[in-house]
């Protein structure tokens, strides 16, 4: 992350004004305007798309399917495979399409955040592939990626314990706030991405970098969990929206 170069253009002097309103007009605990769509790729078994502020991200699920190479197969459950990848044009300065160390790490933590939600034991010796492509990035892409990957898994008809919703909290100019943009993240003191299964009160991804006192850390976790709950509502609406549209077409 430290290797990313800053956005070009003038950096505003203050990101939060004295009325606790952020530079993009949001309140401290407000998510960015978020649009979710389910089932938008015809080849994939399941797919979803998110626009969250300037973030534009696609996720697709293929599987359960036969696993190659076969020796990787697990005798008692499906192998979840996950690839988080950023398009070269998704950031200010072109990113090499080869997977970076950051992308490899994120692919791992995203897989581990989704794993608790699926009944992988129903499909032994198979693989379920999750692909997340970041088309445009503006902070919080791993969280947005998890949110839609979970929707894509549901869309693929994979049995799930719960939807996984994700959202970051952080600290900027001494304030704790929700759903940081790239500018806020870079200027901020801390960033804490979190993924959550609301029905189990289960945190399936938690990372943090920056500096927080133990009290602030607890508050930030609580704030991110609340953000995830809001995101969860949006996810359910998006799934229902697809279902309703389908029914109308069939008539």
């Amino acid at each position, binding site marked *: 992350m430290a290797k990313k170069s800053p956005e070009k253009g003038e950096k505003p002097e203050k990101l939060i004004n004295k009325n606790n309103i952020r530079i993009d007009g949001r309140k401290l605990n407000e998510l960015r305007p978020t649009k979710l769509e389910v089932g938008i790729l015809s080849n994939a078994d399941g797919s979803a798309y998110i626009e969250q502020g300037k973030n534009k991200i696609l996720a697709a699920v293929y599987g359960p399917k036969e696993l190659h190479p076969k020796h990787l197969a697990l005798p008692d459950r499906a192998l979840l495979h996950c690839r988080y990848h950023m398009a070269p044009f998704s950031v200010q300065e072109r990113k090499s399409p080869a997977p970076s160390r950051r992308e490899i790490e994120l692919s791992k933590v995203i897989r581990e955040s989704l794993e608790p939600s699926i009944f992988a034991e129903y499909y032994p010796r198979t693989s379920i592939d999750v692909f997340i492509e970041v088309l445009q990035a503006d902070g919080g892409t791993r969280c947005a990626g998890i949110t839609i990957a979970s929707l894509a898994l549901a869309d693929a008809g994979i049995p799930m314990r719960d939807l996984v919703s994700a959202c970051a909290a952080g600290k900027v100019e001494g304030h704790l706030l929700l759903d940081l943009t790239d500018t806020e993240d870079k200027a901020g003191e801390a960033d804490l991405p979190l993924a959550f299964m609301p029905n189990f009160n*289960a945190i399936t991804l938690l990372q943090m970098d920056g500096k927080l006192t133990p009290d602030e850390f607890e508050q930030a976790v609580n704030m991110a969990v609340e953000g995830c709950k809001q995101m969860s509502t949006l996810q359910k609406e998006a799934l229902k929206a697809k279902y309703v549209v389908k029914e109308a077409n069939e008539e």
Partner: protein
Amino acid sequence: MNIPAMVVRVKQKRIAELISHGKRLDERGLDEYRDIQLEVGVIERAEGSARIRLGKTEVMVGVKIETGEPFPDVPNEGVLTVNAELVPLASPTFEAGPPDENSIELARIVDRGIRESKAITLEKLCITPQKKVFVVFVDIYVLNHDGNLIDASAMAALAALLNTKMFNYELKNDEVQIKPGYTQLPIVNHPVAVTFAKINDKIVVDPWLEEEQVMDARITITMDKDDKVCAVQKGGYGYFSKEQIFEAAKIAKKKSEELRKILVKS
């Protein structure tokens, strides 16, 4: 870490059962670390080095310092690079080849602790702004894997950095000329990682290999010397409740203070 099930089922069951009664197979308390032995300056060719034994887990860290170019967004700061090698001699599950996701994750967790706590005053490693800075390479070398590589590596990395001596230099026509004598690398913070495993819905610190094989999930909390949380990473296929994470943060504060005493006096 992703390790095939090698522990006999019976033993796995025993480990999990004991933990639900607040006990561990190796008779440690749930919040007790294994014995720690630390040596510094073990590699004379490196500018700084340390070797740690955490129970049977063994990690060596070497620090090398070279000159290089700064990143364009921070032209007057030195560069910190952390890399981890899971050397094949350390475990039957490690294979030679380019770093896999486990070694990348390990390196990035250690990196985050050092970077986010601002342990190294990187501004002091600038030679010529925009052109030449010192690059600090922290290379983690796992020699024997018996669990909790993260804490062992983070401790060895900090010990090695505290032990690092930079060569003196002067600039002649923009070229770095090495002068006799050394100065200490400017280390101003001491981040310490504390890793927990969740087993049978209980959290235990410093899991050893067989505990890692039965754990549901793992969380690492890195605290700096002012008791601030500076890095967190959850791993593994399971999950934590909010309450478990807050409990872990409290234990991490206490444990990091204990561990820091061992590291900073050496």
